[in-house]
Structure formats: structure tokens, C-alpha cells
């Protein structure tokens, strides 16, 4: 696939291919009206296969970027200005994750009342989240994105 370079915006590189659509969903890219290109299963020396997303005219806050650490901890962001990479940013796992994941415990209050979910990151490798409310700890296989 021939992908055009973007003049100004963000390239998210080194996304695990199986989590490409989760990254799109977490960053709410479906609500963005500028040009977005994404591709997957590109060869990568580091990862074997990788996915990437190019978003024209959009820059993310560190907080937004960190949200994707849950599914793409290896991702790198390149900030582009005038077709040049002006900054490279790694994602870092945040201390807290709010409002993007459901608690996997069906008996948790957040699954019964209108409560914004909140998790504390208790382990980074592998990532483990503790529900602020019911205190259950969950690993990646239990993550359900809202």
C-alpha cells in the first residue's frame, strides 16, 4: 500500500496488529474529521509485524497517548510538522485508567450504577489493573473497552 506522508499531525507506529482497532477505538478516531490512514501487518524488525496510523492535523495530549499503553505499550508517536518528524514520544503506562475499560466483575457497583470506572495500575509487566471500587485485580485478557 502506498501511504502518503502527512504534512502536519501524528503517526502512531509499532502498534501490535491485533490491537489496531482497539487503539482506534480508545483514541475515538472515528470522531475525527481530518484524513486518517491506517495499515496493518507491515514487516517490522522489532515486532515481526506491526500496524500504524497516520492522523492529519491532530496532536494528542500525554494523557490521551497513555491510554493506548494498555493495548500498545510498544507504540511510538511521531509528531509531524511540515513533513518532518519534530518529536518522538513513547507511550508510558499511566498510574490510573478512567472511563475506558469496564470492570470485569459482574457484581461491581460500576456495572449497576452510572459510575465512571476507575482503575489503579498495580503492575506494568504484565499490566494489571485494580478496580478503585470493587478492588478486583484484572489482567489484559479481561479488558473490555467501553
Amino acid at each position, binding site marked *: 500500500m502506498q501511504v502518503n506522508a502527512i504534512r502536519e499531525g501524528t503517526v502512531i507506529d509499532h502498534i501490535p496488529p491485533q490491537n489496531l482497532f482497539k487503539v482506534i477505538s480508545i483514541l475515538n478516531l472515528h470522531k475525527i474529521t481530518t484524513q486518517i490512514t491506517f495499515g496493518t501487518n507491515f514487516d517490522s524488525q522489532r515486532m515481526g509485524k506491526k500496524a500504524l496510523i497516520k492522523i492529519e492535523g491532530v496532536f494528542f495530549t500525554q494523557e490521551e497517548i497513555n491510554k493506548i499503553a494498555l493495548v500498545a505499550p510498544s507504540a511510538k508517536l511521531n509528531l509531524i510538522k511540515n513533513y518532518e518528524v519534530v518529536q518522538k514520544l513513547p507511550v508510558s503506562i499511566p498510574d490510573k485508567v478512567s472511563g475506558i475499560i469496564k470492570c470485569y466483575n459482574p*457484581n461491581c*457497583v460500576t456495572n449497576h450504577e452510572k459510575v465512571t470506572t476507575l482503575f489503579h495500575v498495580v503492575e506494568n509487566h504484565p499490566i494489571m489493573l485494580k478496580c478503585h471500587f470493587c478492588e478486583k485485580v484484572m489482567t489484559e485478557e479481561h479488558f473490555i473497552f467501553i
Partner: protein
Amino acid sequence: MYLCYAFECVKNAANSFAMNLKNRSLVSITDFSKEEQLYILSLAQDFEKNPVRNLLENRVVATLFFEPSTRTRLSFESAVSRLGGKIIGFSDVASSSMTKGETLKDTIKIVSNYCDLIVMRHYLEGAARYASEISLVPIVNAGDGANQHPTQTMLDMYSIYKTQGTLDNLKILMVGDLKYGRTVHSLLMAMSQFNTTFYFVSPKELMMPEEYKLYLEKLKLSYYEHTDLNEYIGEADIVYMTRVQKERFSDPLEYEKTKNVYILRSEMLKNTKPNMRILHPLPRVNEIDVEVDEHEKAYYFAQAQNGLYVRQAIITSILGVI
């Protein structure tokens, strides 16, 4: 009973603990530091000597029990009554506006206008934490689903201290429903502060969850697991029996399979340590044979009474009247 060194320390710093605990919610045992927990236990000693005092005059405590309870609710209500406080609330969700579809949020917001403290039990895990973040007054969690029951934990700690003379370096055998039992989870976290060795005896279906074993591993504390109650009973300073809780099972067959697996009988106590005592958060079904009740090592009824003093200590600390 002699005061241990740690108790002396907290007594000496009592004023600063009293200041720190005022207006604080108690949802999870970890909401109070180790020193604050010891301070509560030292206050409980004082209340045991003198449980009737007029410290809560003109204070109103709401007891909101969205899930049925007998001893916990009565223990809280007795604690407040003996200190001269008033009680409002409900003991059954059927007599609350939740049956009309009112949310927990609205119930807490409204009730917190009418009282100085809310004691609540709820069938949903995390309900008390959520309530503590929307309430105008402090919340004391009297049990949220299978999650936490911190006042039970502190009365268990007080009972352990009273029977063993220390909280340090003990061997605690936990028996029964270690998967859903909130009391064992909270007690594990609390006693892990005192270099405890844990023994877990449960059916395979009701084993201690991985997250708690991981917690102990991180603290480099030893734990042992078995399915046979006789395996570790001779090692234990405390045998903490629990009921297999019918209300936590969605599958009645699974409950039937596990409910009678462990029954503690008098003859099983023959080769136990002289200082060993049997605790149970109650209610009991049949996991402790009634003949054990008369045994010198049975402590569960006295344990329930200790709850009164511990709850008096917690309520007066949070209300800042001590």
C-alpha cells in the same frame, strides 16, 4: 491483658490519631494505617472496660442495610445506643426507596443530609467506596458483596490480640470459603502487616484468589494450601473457620457440593497448640460442630462481643468525640 509495645506507642500518640481519623470513611481495611488500626484496638480496650458512656449525645447514625444482616447491624446499633446516639435507617432493601427504582447515589445523597455517619452494607462490591465519594458524611462499610468488611477485620484482630497477647509472628489457618469470603480477604491483608504465616484450607472450587496470594508473595510472607483440614491444624495459633455462603453462588449445585466439606469436631482439637483459639465471623451453619462450643479453645461467641467495643472505637474516632 498487657499492652504490647505497639499499643503503648499508639496510646502515646493518641491525640494525633484522633485528629487524623475524624471525618474519615472506613471502606477498606487499608484505608487506616497499621498505627491507626492499633489505635482503634487500644481504644476498644478502653470501651471494653467502660462501654456505656454518653459520647454520642445528639448524634445520629444511619444504618443502611441493603443486604440482610443480624449480628453486624445489631452490633453497630448497640454500640451507638450504649454511647447515647440515635439510629435511623433500614434493615432490608424492601423497606427502602430502592424498590421504587431509586439509585444508590440518590439514597446516599439524601440520607447523608439526615445523619452524622452512615453505616452501610450492600450486595454490590464497591458500593461503599462509591457511597464514600458522594456522601456528605463519612461512610463505614459493614460489608460490600464479597469485597471488604473492615470492622469485622478489626474485631478479628482485637480477638487475636486478646487470645494470643500479640499480633506478631502468628500462624493463622483459614478454613472454608476462601474465594468469596470477604472476612478472610480483609483479615489476610490486615495480618500481613504482622509477619503472619498463613495456611489456607478449602475445596478446590473455593481456593484463596490469586491476587491475595500474589499480595503475600510480594511481602515475602509464607503461605501453604491444602484441601485437608487435619493437615495444618496442629501448627495453628488461630483457626479461622468460615461458612460456605449460599448467597454468593449462582449455581446451587456448586453450593451443595461444597457446603459440608469441613466440619470442625472436638476430637480434631486433641493435638492442637495450647494457645490455639477458634474464631468464626458467624453466622455458623454446621462447619463447627455444636459440641465444640463448650471447648476451651472455642472463642467465636466472645469474638462477636468484641465487635461491640471495636465498633464503638471506630464510630467515636470518626465522629471526633473521643
